[in-house]
């Protein structure tokens, strides 16, 4: 049988547009829209960047000083996970630290790391408390199955640290 090349070319274009168009629509309605809505519903946080491909979902969230990692971030993350499904979800929180907060963090990080490495988790709040003493820094520490959450507030400046318990190689988040 003779192959009709124009037919083949048209089929190629049509198939590609149907498949990719369908996929894009799915992406928009089933992934991006729910994520945007979820983020909008959460107070003190806004979506700064969202990129999605079939395997990854990357979010950059912009927060204000009233945002609390311990109270707000944990439920948000859970919700986003349900939307993301099987995709690998990576969330970046944009904080606004200043030199005091950095300095305090640099001091307390030894104690925190030691506590995590030795699995003596009570050491962590102690180290944080010790690092913030007398520096007018408010802090909050929390942990769950996978992460240790630490937030430092000083005036309108704030610093968030989310340290994975089981993946020491990605302990420090790149905050850009």
């Amino acid at each position, binding site marked *: *049988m003779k*192959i*009709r*090349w*124009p*037919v*083949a*070319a*048209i*089929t*190629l*274009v*049509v*198939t*590609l547009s149907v*498949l*990719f168009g369908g*996929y894009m629509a799915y992406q928009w309605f089933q992934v991006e829209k729910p994520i945007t809505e979820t983020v909008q519903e959460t107070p003190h946080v806004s979506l700064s960047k969202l990129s999605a491909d*079939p*395997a990854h979902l990357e979010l950059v969230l912009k927060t204000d000083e009233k945002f609390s990692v311990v109270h707000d971030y944990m439920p948000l993350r859970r919700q986003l996970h349900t939307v993301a499904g099987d995709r690998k979800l990576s969330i970046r929180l944009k904080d606004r630290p200043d030199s005091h907060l950095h300095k305090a963090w640099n001091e307390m990080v030894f104690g925190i790391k030691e506590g995590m490495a030795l699995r003596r988790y009570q050491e962590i709040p102690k180290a944080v408390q010790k690092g913030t003493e007398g520096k007018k820094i408010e802090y909050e520490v929390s942990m769950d199955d996978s992460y240790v959450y630490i937030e430092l507030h000083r005036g309108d400046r704030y610093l968030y640290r989310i340290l994975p318990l089981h993946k020491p190689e990605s302990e420090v988040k790149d905050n850009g």
Partner: protein
Amino acid sequence: MGKGMIIGAIPAVILFLAYLGYRPMPLVVLGLVAGAVYLLFQSRSGALGVGKKKRLQRKDSVPNISFDKIGGQYRSKEELKEALDFLIHRKRIHQYGIRPIKGILLSGPPGTGKTLMAKAAAHYTDSVFVTTSGSEFVEMYVGVGAQRIRELFQEARDQAKKNQKNSAIVFIDEIDVIGGQREGSVHREYDQTLNQLLTEMDGIASDQEVQILVVAATNRKDMLDSALLRPGRFDRHISVDLPDKKARRMILELQTENKPLAPDADIDQIADETFGFSGAQLESLTNEAAIYAMRDQSDVICQRHLSEAIDKVMMGEKTDREATQEERERVAIHELGHAIISEVVRPKSVSQVSLAPRGQALGYVRHHPGVDRYLYTREQIEQQIMVCLAGAAAEEQVYGNRSTGARNDYEQAGRYTRTLIEAGLSDLGIINKDWVSYETLHRESAKILKELHEQTAQMLNQYSEVFSRALDLLLKEEVLSGSRFRELLKQFAKKPVQMNR
């Protein structure tokens, strides 16, 4: 269309899967393997029946031949046309309550135009025409033949429905391959094929919508199974015989239509001299004549070319065998003997005496058969025998001995005596050859031959002068035409004398 779409869709799907993060290689490899397996199966379609063979030939692919282009065979053509008319005028035959003809069997010697008639039939009706040949059903796998028959009829029906025709013609060439007699307890593969053909032609499940006419050709009708020959299967047996003189002339005229024929070329005479030629031989004759003309660098085909072509078709090409002078003389004497007796018993019957070796013969006399003849009297057969014996008799007369050159002549003479005895024309009267001993037959045959030999020798005696005169001429010229020979004969013939023995 479908193939193009598949070819377009496959890369798109592969691209999409790759974007989704699936690796396409396993899929591609799987596809290639599946394709390879499919191709493998298709190439062995006979065995596995995956792909169907494209046996169906469109009508346009059958050479455009009409019944007018077939010389002679008037009766066969009429018979065939009538059967085909039944396909065309279905309403009228319904009115008369005629059951449509299921099959036509064309039988006859090779080269008489059976296939040609089928080709003409293809164009005569407005039916779907499907053609195949017996050998297409032969395969090394069991059951394929039967399957092919089913497919063939199915194809014919499908094609007819597709083209909105209500009749189809299936032409099976050389049907004797599959239609041979079923005999004995040995079950042969061909039997299945034949059984399938029988049921397709007149089985319980024959389709009423599409009427299928099976036209088959064979040159071994005697070998066909009787179930195939009964009415309802092959209703009409049309025998396509060797052409008679009129038909030969027509065939020759048709065949020379596109050839430059000289004004002196006498088609009528050629038709006269080609008794027993089939259509294919006549076609070959005109073709050879044209080749001879081209070899001679002559612009037109002359009578001489046609005449040489007859010799070539009958006896084969001239050979290079070099005979010694002595042998040549003996051959010349031998042939002259034949020619003289032939001329004496049937005047004007010699058409050519030739000393040029052709095929197996060292020399030959070509006879002019006169009118086409199908019945012979005793006298006529005896004359034939005398012509056969004349070669050896002439040698005997001139040299006093005979040679092995007469062996063929004796065989032929033997055949004639056998005909004579079996036909009840001999002195034995009407006999049943099974009840008569060979010895009796032999004795009678020998008696006839001896008598005739004596007669022949006696006749030749009158022409001894002709031998010496014609011999030189024949040796010199190699070929003597019939008229030249007759002149010599008239000139040198002695008056009849009675021999005393």
